[in-house]
């Protein structure tokens, strides 16, 4: 009994007690980090599919536009894109003065992530054997049908590992939003650290990042296994 009491005391007072006290606000901020990462990858994927198909299309203009988009968003720092959207764009075009910091962050991240995901999707599609398209054509399928029924379903499985990788990167990159004072997990951690004058708070914060990464890695592995059933 004495022993349990000691443990209880250690858990509820002193440093550990402080950590428990921080957890509610850390979890709340985790929600922002998670939803931002998740939504920008989902929306980014939708845009990326069009960008990827555009970049491999025969239409020169479409290829140029999609290529330029990807070049721009991969070639400039995400941090600057975030600044640009938050500070510069409203000055240039008043209509783009978006009040919600969350929305600004979501748009900036979505646009950026789309460029990276587009390259992942393009590479996966182009890694599919050329014979698949030839067989589809010889059977009378149109290019669109071949893409939709034959090529892209095979490309899915090859996209999963790099998309998982991208998700994990984005999860951590969202810490950049603290720069426009959006309270995500990193921002909240920094605030606690300075308010409580205790750097210990970085430990639970990093553990939260690790737990999320671990959970999503497991989920993505499951999806990959499921999609490679036919091999």
């Amino acid at each position, binding site marked *: 009994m004495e022993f349990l009491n000691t443990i209880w005391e250690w858990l509820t007072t002193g440093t550990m007690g402080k950590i428990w006290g921080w957890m509610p606000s850390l979890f709340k901020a985790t929600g922002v980090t998670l939803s931002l990462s998740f939504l920008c990858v989902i929306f980014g994927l939708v845009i990326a599919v069009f960008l990827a198909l555009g970049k491999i299309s025969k239409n020169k203009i479409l290829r140029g536009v999609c290529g330029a988009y990807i070049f721009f968003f991969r070639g400039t720092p995400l941090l600057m894109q975030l600044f640009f959207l938050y500070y510069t764009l409203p000055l240039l075009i008043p209509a783009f003065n978006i009040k919600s910091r969350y929305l600004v962050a979501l748009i900036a991240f979505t646009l950026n992530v789309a460029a990276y995901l587009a390259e992942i999707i393009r590479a996966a599609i182009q890694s599919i054997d050329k014979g698949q398209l030839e067989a589809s054509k*010889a059977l009378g399928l149109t290019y669109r049908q071949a893409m939709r029924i034959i090529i892209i379903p095979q490309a899915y499985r090859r996209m999963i590992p790099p998309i998982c990788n991208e998700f994990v990167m984005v999860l951590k990159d969202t810490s950049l939003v603290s720069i426009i004072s959006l309270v995500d997990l990193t921002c909240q951690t920094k605030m606690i650290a300075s308010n409580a004058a205790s750097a210990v708070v970085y430990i639970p914060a990093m553990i939260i990042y690790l737990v999320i990464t671990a959970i999503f890695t497991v989920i993505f592995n499951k999806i990959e296994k499921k999609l490679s059933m*036919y*091999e």
Partner: protein
Amino acid sequence: MAIIRTEHICKNFGHIEVLKDVSLSVEPGEVVCIIGSSGAGKSTYLRSINHLESITSGKIWIDEKLIDDRVRGTNKVHISAAETTEVLLNVGMVFQRFNLFPHKTALENVMLAPMTVKGVSKEDAEAKARELLTRVGLADRMDAYPSKLSGGQQQRVAIARALAMEPKVMLFDEPTSALDPELVGEVLNVMKQLAEEGMGMIVVTHEMGFARDVADRVVFMDGGRIVEDAPPAEFFTNPKNERLREFLKRSLQEN
């Protein structure tokens, strides 16, 4: 009434002339085998017929319909892409490396094109696919994915897949070259059976035995040209072209 007629086909890859004035016709039900050393343009010619390669100049008729009349790459025939596709449905193709759809079962591979392209109902497509797979001797492997089939079985599925579109003529691009020697026979037997049922075909092959036994005409290509075109008896016993004589001597020594 030729099912495939090609006249003066030329094809350049950059500055390299791969096909130099190739003319060849195939009557319905006729079996034409094309032989020749690698780089002679056999596969390129075959792939040009159903537009997997675009020719530089020449004319192509499929089922008496002119789909290509090209001069320096430009087609002078006014024909829409959809119409060309429609005409080319008369031509089935089997590839050296099978090119089955790996994410579909054997049955689904055969059902896919009739349902997608012709709008055949699932029930009808499945009935037809089962019948075709049975015909090529794969009644017990219908639900297997291609990765679980041997090369010979995969190629037979590929033949059934092409047949499902009910083509009037079939193109075989070295159908047995990627197979282990013991699996070649099963594919050739299916092709032979198909020929006996009256299917017209052009077969690019190195199988001299098949050419001798099954073909109505054997064509020898060399350096992008057709240099001999004769019935098998004449082709193998009394070849006129010097290069063909050398080629036959070499392939006899190898076997």
